[in-house]
C-alpha cells in the first residue's frame, strides 16, 4: 500500500448515541461531564454503552452506533458498504460527510469530499427548477461559475427542460428526484459518498443513474456506496466492507463481502417441521411433516439468489400405500397471486406419485424465473381425479434476492418489474 495514494483514513472512530428522550436527565449528565472535564478526568459516560443491537433492550442509556472502526481508502477505490439495518452504515456515512462528529477517533481526508445522503437537499418549493439547481449545487459544495458551466448538462440529464422555469412545488415527486440527482451527478469531487440514492425514480431513470455512477467510478474517482441492493453494489464496486453491530467485520472483494453477508441473511431460521394443524384440507390419508428450502449443498436457506433454481425437500407421511398421486407446489406472491404451479405428473420428466405407508421423502427442483421479492409456498397432495387429500397453504415464505450467483449481474433495480422474467431477444433496424 502506497501511503501517498491514501485519500481517506479512519482511525478508531466510534460514535455514541444517547437513547430515549433528551430531557430532564440531560442537564445533570452535562453537569457531570463538565465537572469531570474540569477535574481533568475522562468523560464518565464514554466507558459505558451497549453494542448496537436493536432487538435487545438496553441496560444503559447509551449505545455505540460505531465502535473502533478502522479503514483506509485508496485513490480510485470503489467501495461498497453493506450490512443489516442498524449495523452502523448510515452513522459511518454521517461521520464521513461531517454531518456529525465522531465521539472518539479521527478521520483524515485528502481532496474534496461530497456526500450524497439524499437527492435534492435544500430544494425550495417556491423557487424554479433553474434556481434550485444553483441552490442545491451550492449546498453540495459547487461554486456558482461551476454550476453555470454545467447547467445545460444538468438540465438535459434531468429531462425537465420544459419545466425548468416552473416552481418546483408544481413538480411531481419523480421530477424532483430527477432534478436532484442530475445536480448530484455533476458534482466533481475527488471522493464521492453515495447513500441509497439510486433507489429512486422509474426504470429508465435508474438505468441512467447506474450508468452515470459506473462512469463516475470508472474515471478513477474514489466512491463509497451504501445500498441494500446487492446486485447494483456488485455491479459498481470492487471492494466491500461488511458491517455488523457498529463494526466492520469483513473487508475484501465486493463479491466475497456480499457472499459473507448473504450467508447469514440466507440461513433459514426454522427447522421446516410442519405443525399438526397447519393443513387447510386434510382427509387423513397423507400429511406433510416437513418442508425445507435448500441450496445445492443441501443447507436450509430462506432466500435464493436471482435465477438460481429452487430446491425443495419434503417429508410426506402416508397412512397407507398410494400407488399414484399428484404432489404439487404453488408459488404465490405475498398478495396471493399464483405464479407457479409445479406438479410431479406434469413436468418434462413426469414422476409417478407413489407413496408408501410411513414417511416418504420427496425432492423437487423448480426452474426459477422469479423477479426479486418475497414469495410464499403452498403445497398439496391430490388423488389422480383431482380430489385433494392434503393441502397446506402459505407454509413457507422465501425471498428471491437481487444478487445472482457467480459473475452474473443480477437485478440492479430497486423496484419490482413484473413477477417473472422471460428472456427476450431484440433486433432494431435503424433507417440507414
Amino acid at each position, binding site marked *: 500500500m502506497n501511503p501517498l495514494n491514501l485519500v481517506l483514513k479512519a482511525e478508531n472512530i466510534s460514535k455514541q448515541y444517547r437513547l430515549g428522550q433528551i430531557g430532564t436527565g440531560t442537564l445533570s449528565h452535562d453537569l457531570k461531564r463538565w465537572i469531570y472535564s474540569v477535574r481533568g478526568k475522562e468523560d464518565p459516560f464514554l466507558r459505558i454503552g451497549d453494542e448496537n443491537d436493536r432487538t435487545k433492550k438496553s441496560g444503559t442509556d447509551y449505545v455505540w452506533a460505531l465502535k473502533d472502526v478502522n479503514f483506509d481508502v485508496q485513490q480510485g477505490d470503489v467501495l461498497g458498504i453493506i450490512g443489516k439495518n442498524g449495523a452502523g452504515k448510515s452513522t459511518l456515512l454521517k461521520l464521513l460527510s461531517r454531518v*456529525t462528529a465522531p*465521539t472518539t477517533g479521527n478521520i483524515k481526508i485528502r481532496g474534496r469530499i461530497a456526500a450524497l445522503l439524499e437527492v435534492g437537499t435544500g430544494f425550495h418549493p417556491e423557487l424554479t427548477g433553474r434556481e434550485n439547481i444553483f441552490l442545491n449545487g451550492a449546498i453540495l459544495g459547487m461554486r456558482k461559475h461551476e454550476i453555470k458551466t454545467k447547467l445545460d448538462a444538468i438540465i438535459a440529464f434531468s429531462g425537465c427542460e420544459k419545466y425548468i422555469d416552473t416552481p418546483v412545488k408544481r413538480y411531481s415527486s419523480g421530477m424532483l428526484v430527477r432534478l436532484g440527482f442530475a445536480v448530484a451527478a455533476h458534482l466533481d469531487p475527488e471522493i464521492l459518498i453515495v447513500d441509497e440514492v439510486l433507489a429512486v425514480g422509474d426504470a429508465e431513470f435508474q438505468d441512467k443513474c447506474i450508468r452515470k455512477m459506473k462512469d463516475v467510478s470508472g474515471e478513477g474517482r474514489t466512491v463509497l456506496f451504501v445500498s441494500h441492493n446487492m446486485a447494483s453494489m456488485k455491479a459498481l464496486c470492487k471492494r466491500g466492507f461488511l458491517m455488523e453491530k457498529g463494526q466492520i467485520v469483513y473487508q475484501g472483494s465486493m463479491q466475497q463481502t456480499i457472499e459473507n453477508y448473504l450467508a447469514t441473511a440466507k440461513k433459514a431460521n426454522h427447522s421446516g417441521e410442519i405443525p399438526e394443524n397447519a393443513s387447510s384440507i386434510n382427509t387423513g390419508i397423507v400429511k406433510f411433516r416437513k418442508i425445507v428450502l435448500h441450496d445445492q449443498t443441501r443447507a436450509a436457506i430462506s432466500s435464493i439468489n436471482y435465477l438460481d433454481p429452487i430446491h425443495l425437500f419434503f417429508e410426506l407421511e402416508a397412512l397407507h400405500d398410494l400407488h399414484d398421486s399428484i404432489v404439487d407446489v404453488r408459488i404465490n406472491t405475498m398478495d396471493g397471486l399464483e405464479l407457479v404451479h409445479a406438479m410431479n405428473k406434469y413436468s418434462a420428466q413426469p414422476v409417478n406419485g407413489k407413496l408408501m405407508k410411513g414417511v416418504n421423502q420427496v425432492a423437487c427442483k423448480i426452474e426459477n424465473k422469479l423477479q426479486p421479492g418475497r414469495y410464499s409456498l403452498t403445497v398439496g397432495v391430490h388423488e389422480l381425479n383431482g380430489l385433494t387429500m392434503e393441502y397446506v397453504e402459505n407454509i413457507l415464505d422465501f425471498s428471491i434476492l437481487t444478487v445472482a450467483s457467480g459473475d452474473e449481474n443480477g437485478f440492479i433495480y430497486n423496484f419490482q418489474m413484473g413477477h417473472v422474467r422471460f428472456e427476450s431477444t431484440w433486433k432494431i433496424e435503424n433507417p440507414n
Partner: protein
Amino acid sequence: MENQKNWDVIISPRSSWFDFRFKELWSHRDLLLLFVKRDFVSLYKQTILGPVWFFVQPIFTTIIFTVVFAGFAGMSTDNAPHVLFYLGGLTLWNYFADCLTKTSETFIQNQAIFGKVYFPRLIVPLSVIVSNLLKLLLQFLLFFAVWIYFYVAKPSSVSPNATVFLLPVLIAVMAGLSLGFGIIFSSLTTKYRDMKFLLQFGVQLMMYASSVVIPLSQVPEKYQWVMKLNPVVPVIEAFKFGFLGSGQFEATDLLYSIIFTVTIILSGTLIFNRVERSFMDTV
C-alpha cells in the same frame, strides 16, 4: 510515514477553541448569496403587494406608537417629531430583532439540510443577517423619505449633524449584536428548547428597554447606567441624535457597544463551532 500536513481535512471529536475557519467560510460565499436570494425571492411569492409588505409593518407600528405612547400617554420623544422618533427607532430595532429571532432558529429550522450535507453552518446565520440587511435598506428608505418631508416642511423640527455618517457603523453593530446573540441562542436551543420561549418574550420586552419607545433622557439620571448596559441603547440613541438632533450621544457609550459586539461575536462563534459538530445528535 505520513505527515499531518498531507491531509486536507481531519475530522475529530472536538475542534480546537480558536478555529474560525474563515477560509472555509469564504469558499462558500456563493452559497451565502444563494441563500439570501432564496429568502428574498421566496418571501413574498404569491402575494399581491409583494415587497410593499416591508413598509406596512413599520408604518402601522409607528402609527400605533404615535397614538398610544405620544398621544394617550403623552410620553416625551425628546422634542423630535413623534413619527420620526418612533419610525427611526423601530427601523433599527426591527433589524436587530428580526435577525436575532431568525438566527436563533438556525439549527432547528435547518435540521433537514444540516442532517444531510456539510457546509460551514455559520453560512446560514450570516445569510440571515445579509438578507435582513436588504429589508433594512428598504425600510430605511421609508424613514429617509419621511425625514426629508420633515426636513423640508418643518426645518426647525429636525437638526441633523455629522453623527449621521456613523450610520454604517451603527448598522454593523446591530448586525454583529444580533448575529452574536442569535448564534448563542441557536446553540443552546439544540439541547434546551426553553431558550426559544425565553427569547420570544425577551425580545419583546427588550424593545422597551432599548430607547425605541422611551428615550434615555426620560430615565432618571442615576439609573441611566443600567439602561446603558444594554448595548443596543447607544446605537439607537446615536441614530436619533444624528438624524433628529434629539437624545444623547457619547462616543464612549458607542465604543462600549462596539467592544460588546466584538466580544459577543467571538464567543458566539466559539460556542457555535463547538455545537455545530454534533448538534444533529441532540437537536
